[in-house]
């Protein structure tokens, strides 16, 4: 059968599928209490939902019931309205990507063979698989030429995890299940991997269900978070913002932990708050004009940019004088910048460590875009928290109205 030539790049914007869990229960024989009891939820197409909860709360069991690694005792699972509770589990799993904690790479296969597994099983032609492997390695930020023929044990933990994700996504499944995938890597690598996942999701729009016990990870990654208590009971299922500002009960607030306002900073990016303009000059500008700008301007400080428009030095009035007119010696070097994608928390960190309380924001290729200072940060955080509070109050209000309406109906029905 002639096969269409493999697309050189992701040909279509792959989109996720809706997952619906209906009254899902898992009861192990020999234990009185079910491991998961009567869980219902809807996970919308293309969103990342995080299951977070204490260990042993059944979050992993719930996840594994979605691809039926654990068969539910009762209840239904629907993916895009197809009831998958009864279909051949092997078939189901090929449509659902699966990434686990220890990466789960097969040590006797090369990176390429690992990634190619699912496409091979579903019968893609060889050339398409070869292209796909390269594409996936690229996607997760590993150089195909370098990593193609390596064995898992020749990779670092973080690289293994990336390959694990590449393997899970290789056959382009609409749904991706991730069971504490970043639990076993060091904090710095974990942070990188989380950023990568966010970037990937921006491109791919899969439906991702992600299990973790780390609430900060949940906040960082989740579009919505399901906080689960024992027997996988949903304590709250809402956006990170709503959970942070308006935890449903003591269990959730206990899980959110202290410092909700600080955690809130993780949810907002520098791009979302106004960066302020700052007087700038370029190293190529004539010395005299820089001099004039410093003397006449309202600000007594300039940000000097290098030839590529990247922040280079902070220049105060008088610095030039002291350095006897030499730009090379005047001012203090810019030692820290943040990108527009950085979280407010990163920005705050940078502002706090800067001795003048401001940090330059950069865009593509490190080009200067503006400055964030303490004042901007404080203002935006206040605004954010205020908005959250309003929203929460509104939410509360609608809930109460609904409840009131229901009570009224019941009363009317009763009479």
């Amino acid at each position, binding site marked *: 059968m002639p096969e269409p030539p493999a697309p050189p790049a992701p040909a279509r914007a792959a989109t996720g599928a809706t997952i619906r869990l209906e009254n899902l229960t898992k009861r192990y024989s020999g234990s009185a209490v079910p491991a998961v009891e009567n869980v219902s939820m809807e996970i919308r197409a293309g969103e990342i939902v995080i299951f977070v909860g204490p260990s042993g709360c059944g979050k992993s069991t719930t996840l594994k019931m979605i691809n039926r690694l654990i068969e539910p005792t009762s209840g239904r699972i629907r993916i895009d309205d197809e009831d998958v509770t009864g279909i051949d589990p*092997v*078939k189901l*799993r*090929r449509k659902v990507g*699966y990434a*686990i904690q220890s990466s789960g790479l097969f*040590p*006797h296969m090369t990176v390429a063979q690992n990634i190619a597994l*699912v496409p091979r099983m579903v019968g893609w032609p060889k050339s398409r698989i070869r292209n796909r492997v390269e594409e996936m390695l690229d996607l997760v930020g590993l150089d195909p030429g370098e990593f193609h023929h390596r*064995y898992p044990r020749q990779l670092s933990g973080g690289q293994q995890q990336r390959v694990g994700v590449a393997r899970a996504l290789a056959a382009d499944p609409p749904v991706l299940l991730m069971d504490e995938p970043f639990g076993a890597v060091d904090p710095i690598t974990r942070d990188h991997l989380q950023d990568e996942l966010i970037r990937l999701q921006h491109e791919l729009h899969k439906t991702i269900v992600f299990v973790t016990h780390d609430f900060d990870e949940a906040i960082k990654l989740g579009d919505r978070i399901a906080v689960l208590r024992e027997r996988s009971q949903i304590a709250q299922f809402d956006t990170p913002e709503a959970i942070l500002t308006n935890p449903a009960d003591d269990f959730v607030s206990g899980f959110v932990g202290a410092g909700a306002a600080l955690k809130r900073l993780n949810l907002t990016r520098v791009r979302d708050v106004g960066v302020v303009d700052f007087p700038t000059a370029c190293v190529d500008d004539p010395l005299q004009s820089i001099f004039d700008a410093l003397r006449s301007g309202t600000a007594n400080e300039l940000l000097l940019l290098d030839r590529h428009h990247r922040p280079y030095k902070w220049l105060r009035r008088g610095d030039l004088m002291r350095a006897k007119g030499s730009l090379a010696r005047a001012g203090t070097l810019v030692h820290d910048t943040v990108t527009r994608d950085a979280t407010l928390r990163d920005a705050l960190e940078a502002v706090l460590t800067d001795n003048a309380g401001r940090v330059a924001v950069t865009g593509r290729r490190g080009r200067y875009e503006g400055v964030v200072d303490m004042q901007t940060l404080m203002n935006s955080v206040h605004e954010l928290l205020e908005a959250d509070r309003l929203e929460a109050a509104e939410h509360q209000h609608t809930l109460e109205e609904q409840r009131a309406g229901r009570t009224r109906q019941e009363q009317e029905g009763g009479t």
Partner: protein
Amino acid sequence: MSFWEYVGSRHAQLLADTFQHASAVFQCMVVATLAGVAIGVATYRSEWAGNLAVTAGATLLTIPSLALIGLLVPVTGLGVAPTVTALVLYGLLPIVRNAIVGLRGVDPALVDAAKGIGMSRAARLFRVELPLAWPPILTGIRVSTQMLMGIAAIAAYASGPGLGNEIFRGISSLGSVNALNQVLAGTLGIIVLALGFDAAYVLIGRLTIPRGIRA
């Protein structure tokens, strides 16, 4: 007659015996490997079945080989049949045991991952579990082969093939001129064969164990 003169004068006979010895051990090893791995695959998942297979194999091994062959002769007659039966039975244990240990030793997370990405039961077994259990299985095969080399010599007692004939002839004519030479030639032949087989296994290991899990 010195030993080397003896070897020189009887080299045709010796070579034929050596060849038959090697061929008997090799063929029995093939059968024992297939059967042993099959038994391992069939039983490793169940606690009691796996233990039963290992215990049964171990019990078989405690029967002295001369006795087992003696017991087999009334059933199978003389010659090749009792030899092959005995060799295969003795060869099973190390393979079954290592197959079970190897298969049970595969990281459950990997089996979980294999299931999770949609591998069927057979694919899991042939693409993941057996390849990962292969190094210990190969070790079992090596141990079995070494054992069978010696046991095959006993088969001459039931007029089986191989270098055992040389040894038995020597023993039965103790005191005669060539008795010692015969025993020596048979024994040395078996040692050389065993070393040769072992070298072959090292090579097989190199060729069949993927680089990713080679120690």
